[in-house]
């Protein structure tokens, strides 16, 4: 170990300690402490995304807004992929009022509907996409099925994003794709035997966290697949942010933690950084606050090899990957 490395040890230890103890790390405290520590990865250069097209799903609420704004400030042409174009246009206006020269375009796609994802990819009039941020999220109060009969959180967080990325892989050549996951996935195992939540009593937060676990476990396999397009695939979790999803679905959690929840900018920081930083980050990693993080905090959540194989077969079949 060099002297320089030794000198950064306490900083790394603090960063890691905050990560493993969740509350300090995942809250706004963690973000504010980390970005002041030596070794905090540098901000992207001003104009880092000038002339580049970036797609953000779920762009008209919560972290999506923070993400669009952060990308626009770096000069990107941001395509706001939304379900509700009226709301999308309203949010677009609000962002432009803050970032005057933002180049924002609103476009419609319902990530839950694989047919609509195919239509979207067909109609997207771009030859090159620099980055695709899969930010769209849902937490259905009751078990809900997508038009193709898939459980809705799995459809929106996993199947739609995987299909969209697959269909855009030529245009994403040497680009970056970010899956916005959730720290909630740390508490769940991979639901290999029941990805559609057909068994047991449905719980919105469990369904949500399982779909986020599915994203994270499929991440290395998808990164392998898309490495042949020179694509960087990154998973990330935003920490605990004050999002509409949290407000609607976890009111008690929000009441207790409100003062320390992250705002949209803080929650979207790592997504924006992953899209813009140079050189490109390594593929297949799971990030939080600009640093690769472990995907398991306890051994009990580790999937067996046969479970990964089963989940992968399900994902391939549901999205029609050859």
């Amino acid at each position, binding site marked *: 170990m060099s002297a320089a490395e030794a000198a950064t040890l306490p900083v790394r230890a603090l960063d890691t300690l905050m990560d493993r103890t969740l509350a300090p790390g995942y809250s706004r405290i963690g973000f504010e402490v980390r970005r002041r520590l030596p070794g905090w990865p540098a901000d992207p250069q001003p104009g880092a995304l000038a002339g580049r097209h970036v797609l953000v799903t779920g762009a008209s609420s919560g972290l999506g807004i923070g993400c669009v704004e952060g990308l626009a400030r770096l000069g990107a042409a941001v395509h706001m992929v939304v379900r509700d174009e009226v709301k999308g246009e309203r949010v677009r206006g609000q962002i432009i009022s803050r970032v005057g020269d933002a180049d924002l375009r609103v476009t419609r796609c319902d990530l839950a509907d694989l047919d609509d994802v195919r239509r979207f990819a067909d109609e997207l009039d771009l030859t090159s996409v620099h980055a695709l941020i899969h930010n769209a999220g849902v937490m259905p109060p009751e078990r809900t099925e997508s038009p193709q009969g898939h459980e809705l959180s799995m459809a929106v967080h996993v199947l739609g994003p995987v299909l969209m990325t697959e269909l855009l892989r030529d245009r994403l050549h040497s680009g970056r794709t970010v899956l916005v996951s959730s720290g909630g996935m740390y508490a769940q195992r991979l639901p290999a035997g029941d990805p559609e939540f057909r068994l047991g009593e449905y719980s919105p937060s469990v369904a949500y966290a399982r779909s986020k676990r599915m994203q994270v476990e499929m991440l*290395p*396999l998808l*990164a*392998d*697949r898309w*490495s*042949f397009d*020179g694509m960087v695939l990154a998973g990330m979790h935003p920490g605990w942010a004050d999002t509409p999803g949290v407000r609607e679905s976890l009111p008690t959690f929000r009441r207790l933690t409100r003062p320390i929840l992250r705002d949209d900018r803080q929650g979207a920081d790592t997504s924006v950084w992953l899209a813009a930083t140079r050189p490109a980050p390594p*593929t*297949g990693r799971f990030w939080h606050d600009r640093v690769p993080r472990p995907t398991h905090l306890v051994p009990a959540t*580790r999937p*067996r*090899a*046969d479970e*990964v*194989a089963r989940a*992968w077969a399900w994902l391939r079949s549901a999205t029609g990957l050859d």
Partner: protein
Amino acid sequence: MRPSITRTFTTTAAPERVHDYLADFRNAEEWDPGTKTCELVQGGGEVGSVYRNVSSFMGRESEIRYTVAELERPTRIHLVGRNEQFEGHDVLGVRAGVDGGSEVTYHAEFSFTGAAKYAAPLVAAYLPALARKTIRQMQACLDALGDGR
């Protein structure tokens, strides 16, 4: 207890060459320090094919039948080995690396039944050293393929 280990390394060999070499499990005779013999006893190497692998592990010789569970060229290889007291998974992920080379992730996972269960902690303790040796040998074999391209 289900000891497992995952290691990632790079090689100069192209992904397709890496895949074809590792997907033919008979080559374990070269890359796996533990394997003494490995022959194809059923099928032609595709999913469902069976290999008969004789290896020595911690001083004991054992025969394990490996079935090909997954094969996706060039990204993924998954073999499941079984005998009366043992089930093991070897999973290889291959991704495109720099300058035409590859990045390979090797995952090995073991579970034991019956009296062999008591071996699990020992295997878990021995696994990092075993993996280090295996990876070194596998990487050398793959680099040799890369040099010949």
